[in-house]
Each structure stands twice: as structure tokens, then as C-alpha cells.
């Protein structure tokens, strides 16, 4: 029965899994330590935490190892793991004004109170392949750290000391001057739904939009935000403030509900985009705001999210980035990749059915030709 397709599924799957392991290991190099990934693949770990929507650096690093560096696959592993975890409770609203900042810039003003803090960025590095990295050894690392750490302790390496500073927000200043739209009262009054527990329907509350975007795939968000920036529904954004740092998370004490307890802190990237002016209910024009926030250090994602937050509130649906349904249904990396991959599944029953239709249509076509 050489022609019976895809038989013996179980054995085939097991063999495929073994092959995956072999392909990862056949180079013969030392096994990657999860700690190494966590430390040295910092941005990949952050991206996976964001898209997997679970703040767990070790698990994200492990997922990256398992997925051989495929961030979408790693995010999927993390999300599937997340869905097995008990939901203990919800944190109180985190205030990013309390952020212990490692990086903070504003494109809107030359200088801002507290100053621009470049922090760890390669924005201004020349993109030249660094061949020295190929030779990097523990000795090099020790040498560098030996020089860097004392300077950092003396406070010479901006924002890298023991105590990280926090700063007022640029948008608060604009708001105090009446230049910025005031927060939407109905939005603030809305109960925040949990999109993993309640179905998403449209029009979606802003909180739901934010959640979908915070879990969104970086590339997907970027492509849609970029389409707006290029001209499909441009909102003329200016980066009011971009900050990266640690935000404390608090919960109500379980047995003493009046008491608030800090349970830890998470690294987040926050972007606030100042956009095209609009007249408020009182008819006075003000700048509008787009907001983005995601786990870890991922500036492209936070900026894209802020741009899309604003484009989706335009009210028109003329450009893809303005249509919330278009944006929210297409940026989830886990959903999009799963469905894209599903075309690899057998479809021979459906194909047989369309084949039947094609043959029939060809027959009808030939008969018509013949009769003419």
C-alpha cells in the first residue's frame, strides 16, 4: 500500500521530534545555558515575554533555547505555559511615574526636566559587524567589568548606579499647560476586561485594545504602525517620551484588604506619542496622545503600539491602521503564525472537493465552446 498517504502518524511524529533535537545538537558545540540566553540574549527574552504575555525571564530564555531562537515559537511555548498557571489575582494599576528609569528620551523637547538619559542603546552606534565579539572570552569580560563597575558606582555611567532615578513625565507638563487632551472620562470609568477571559467584541474598549497590542507580535505591530507613518492615515506623531525601566507592582493584601503590598517589579518600555491636534468637546484644539507599553526592553514595539493606539481612535476606517478590527485581528503572533502554519496540514478532502468543481466547470466550459 505504498500510496496510502500519511499513515503511521505516531511513529512519524516521534521520529520528527528526535530529528529536531539532532539538528540542534549536531554542530557539537557546548550546550547553551539558559542563564546565558537570559543574560546575553536580553532583547530576545524581552520580546518573548511580551508576545508570550508572561513576565518570566527564565522561562522565556528556556523557550528560546527550545525553539532554537525562533521568537514566535518561543512566545507560543510561553503562552501555552501561561494558560496552565492559576490566576491568583490582578495587580493594582501601576503608575509609570514611579518607574526606576534606565533610559528616557524625548524627541519633542531639546531638554526635559531631569534630562535626557540615553541609557543602554545602540541607536547611535555604527552598524559595523564587530569581529572582536567572535573572540570574546571571560578575560575580556572581566577586564571590561573591572573598568566599568567602579565608574558606575561613582555615578559616571548615567543611570546605572545602585539607586535608579525616577522622573516627572513630559506629557504631564504638556497637560498642565492645557496643550494635551484630557483623559477620556468614559474610558476611565470602564471596567477593565481581561481579554483572555472574556471574548473580544467590537467596538472594543480601549483597555482591550491595549491588551491585544501588548501581547502583539513586534513585527506585526511595526508593519501596521509604519503604514500609518508612511501616509496611510498619518497621525503626525512626535515621540513625547520614551522610557525604559522598572515599575513596582502592588496588590491588595489577601487577608488585610486595606493593606497594599509591593510584590515585585517588572521591566517595561513605555512610549507616549503626541499626535495631530483635535478639538475636544469644548471646541478647544489640543494635542492628542497615543500610548504604548510592553514588557521588557522593546522600543520598536512600544512606539508602534502608541502610534496604533492613536490611529485606532481616529474614527475613520479608511486606512488599515485606523480600523481597530483590522489591527487587532492581525497582530497576534501566536494566532497568525498558527494559522499560517496550518496550511501544512493535509487538506486532501477539501482539495478533492474543489477538484470536482474545477473538472465540472471545465466540462461546462468545453460544452459551451462546442455549442458555439
Amino acid at each position: 500500500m505504498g500510496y496510502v498517504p500519511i499513515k503511521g502518524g505516531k511513529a512519524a511524529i516521534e521520529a520528527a521530534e528526535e530529528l529536531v533535537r539532532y539538528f540542534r545538537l549536531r554542530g557539537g558545540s557546548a550546550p547553551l545555558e539558559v542563564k546565558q540566553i537570559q543574560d546575553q540574549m536580553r532583547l530576545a527574552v524581552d520580546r518573548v515575554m511580551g508576545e508570550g504575555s508572561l513576565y518570566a525571564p527564565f522561562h522565556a530564555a528556556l523557550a528560546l533555547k527550545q525553539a532554537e531562537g525562533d521568537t514566535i515559537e518561543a512566545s507560543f511555548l510561553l503562552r501555552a505555559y501561561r494558560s496552565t498557571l492559576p490566576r491568583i489575582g490582578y495587580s493594582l494599576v501601576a503608575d509609570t511615574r514611579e518607574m526606576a528609569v534606565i533610559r528616557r528620551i524625548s524627541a519633542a523637547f531639546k531638554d526635559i526636566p531631569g534630562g535626557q538619559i540615553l541609557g543602554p542603546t545602540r541607536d547611535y552606534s555604527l552598524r559595523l559587524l564587530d569581529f572582536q565579539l567572535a573572540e570574546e572570552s571571560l578575560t575580556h569580560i572581566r577586564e571590561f567589568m573591572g573598568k566599568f563597575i567602579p565608574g558606575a558606582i561613582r555615578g559616571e555611567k548615567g543611570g546605572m548606579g545602585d539607586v535608579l532615578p525616577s522622573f516627572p513625565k513630559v506629557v504631564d507638563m504638556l497637560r498642565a499647560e492645557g496643550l494635551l487632551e484630557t483623559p477620556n472620562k468614559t474610558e476611565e470609568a470602564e471596567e477593565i476586561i481581561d481579554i483572555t477571559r472574556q471574548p473580544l467584541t467590537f467596538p472594543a474598549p480601549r483597555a482591550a485594545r491595549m491588551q491585544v497590542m501588548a501581547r502583539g507580535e513586534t513585527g506585526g505591530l511595526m508593519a501596521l504602525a509604519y503604514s500609518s507613518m508612511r501616509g496611510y492615515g498619518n497621525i503626525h506623531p512626535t515621540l513625547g517620551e520614551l522610557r525604559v525601566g522598572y515599575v513596582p507592582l502592588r496588590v491588595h493584601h489577601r487577608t488585610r484588604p486595606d493593606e497594599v503590598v509591593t510584590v515585585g517589579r517588572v521591566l517595561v518600555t513605555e512610549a507616549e506619542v503626541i499626535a495631530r491636534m483635535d478639538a475636544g468637546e469644548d471646541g478647544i484644539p489640543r494635542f492628542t496622545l497615543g500610548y504604548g507599553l510592553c514588557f521588557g526592553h522593546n522600543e520598536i514595539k512600544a512606539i508602534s503600539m502608541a502610534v496604533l493606539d492613536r490611529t485606532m481612535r481616529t474614527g475613520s476606517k479608511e486606512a488599515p491602521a485606523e480600523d481597530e478590527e483590522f489591527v487587532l485581528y492581525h497582530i497576534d503572533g501566536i494566532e497568525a503564525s498558527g494559522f499560517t502554519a496550518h496550511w501544512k496540514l493535509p487538506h486532501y478532502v477539501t482539495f478533492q472537493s474543489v477538484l470536482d468543481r474545477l473538472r465540472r466547470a471545465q466540462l461546462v466550459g468545453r460544452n459551451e465552446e462546442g455549442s458555439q
Partner: protein
Amino acid sequence: MREKKVQSGYNFAFLDEQSKKEIRRRMLKAVAIPGYQVPFASRELPIARGWGTGGLQLTMSLIGPEDILKVIDQGSDDVVNAVNIRKLLVLTTGVRTTEDTREATLIQTRHRIPEEPLEDWQILVFQVPYPEPLRRVEPSEVKTREMHAEADYSRLWVYLYEDIVRWGEITIGAQYPVMVNGRYVMDPSPIPRWDVPRLNMAETLYLFGAGREKRIYAVPPHTRVEPLQFTDYPFRVEDFRCKQCALCGSVDTYLDEIIDDTTGARRYICSDTAYCAKRRRLKEEAGENA
């Protein structure tokens, strides 16, 4: 009993009881409004979106320790995806499985309805990639929901009309739109047209789950299900006239077209592999007895 842990660390049938309860509530609503798509908060599973997560969540929410489970893909129990789904379900429930349609209490399927008739003590769960039958003519969910609310199906009808004008036939192969209970147009999932008549006035509860699109819908037993068709262009199933299964000789089942490895010739075999094997067995037994 349902709290029984099989694979350490996971709840019976993977999902937590709260999630299962919510999904069962949505299923009840779906049964109450035949053909209507009920939104639900689709959970993340350890298999990918688009690979049966909707059907799985329904199965997981329904299954009990006493159930006898059958999982098929393209009509076959042995296709890799069916194997994978069965593996996850067995791992987390420890239930008995079967390939025999007549024995299974719960059947999860992708793209087929088993050939053997189903009865009222059985449930068939379909995996659904596109729950929205109007997606062919309208991409926006907001608009299609409005169209369903107003029973506004004229654009889908025009699509069928234009198909006939252009091709002399309706060209929809599998996934043929049906009218359920005279009210909602429904996507029956990508089953071939062959299986569509068996949705009508059936004995069995049919449940449809779309995990990625987060929708559940149902055809309860004894519900009218009619394919959309024109009086002068009636609905037709796939044409297997003059063809028969190369293995069991069947002339009344849905067939897969196979290209022979060596000769390149076309051959046909049953898509429902378990039923095909059963027929061959019965034939052999009859032969021995004769």
C-alpha cells in the same frame, strides 16, 4: 471524579474547571440558537491556533472519564494531526479511544463526517477554521454580525449567482454555506459537499468550535439544514460515479484520489479509513464463512 489528575500537574482534560464551565455555557447558548455564532474567550493550548484548538476546547469541556473518544482528520484516525490531538486528550484524561464510529461517544473531526450513521447518544465536534460564512463577501466582523442580525444574506446569494454566470456552476467545493433552521446562514466547516446532507434532521448533536476566531456554534438534533441553492441550479455533492474504493470496493462513500507511486495512475480509496477497514474485515469474514 472529574478532578482526577492523569498527567501530573495538569487538570483533567487540561483546561481548568472554570474555563470548561464557561465553554459549556456558550455551547448551551449555541444549541439554543442553531447556527448562531457565540463568541467565547478561547484559551491558549499547547497546540497551535488553526490546528484544532476550537474543537479541542469543546471536547475538553465535554469529555468525562467514561467517554470513548475517536479523533479523525480528513476522515482518517491515523493522520498526524489526529494522532497529535488524540495524544493530548489521552495524556490529560486517560479515556478509552476507538477507531470504530459506532462505539465512540465523542468524536472530534476535521473536514469529515464519518460515513456510518451517528446516533443520539453521540456528539460530533468539528474543528473550524473560518466560522463566518459571510467572510467570502465581507471582511469586517462588525458588518457580518450586523448582516446576520438582519438576516441579510443577499450578498452571499449574489456571489453564488455570479459564480453560475461566470462558471456555469457554483464553484464552492468544501465548506458549502448552509441555512440552519431557516434563520442563520452557517459555515459547516470545510467538510465536502458529500457530508452536507447529513447535517439535516440528524440524530446527533453537532458542535462547531473555532479557537483562533473564538466562536462556538451548533446544529442540534432534528434541525433543518439546507445548502443555499437555486431552484434551477440545485446543490450537488461530489461526483464519484463510475468510481469505487480500490481497497473495499465501496461505491457509496467519499473517496480520496490517489496517484500511484509507480504507474502514475489515478486510484480511489475511502476517505473514512476506519469504515473502509471494517468493510474489508466483514468481507473477509463473509468469505471465510462461505
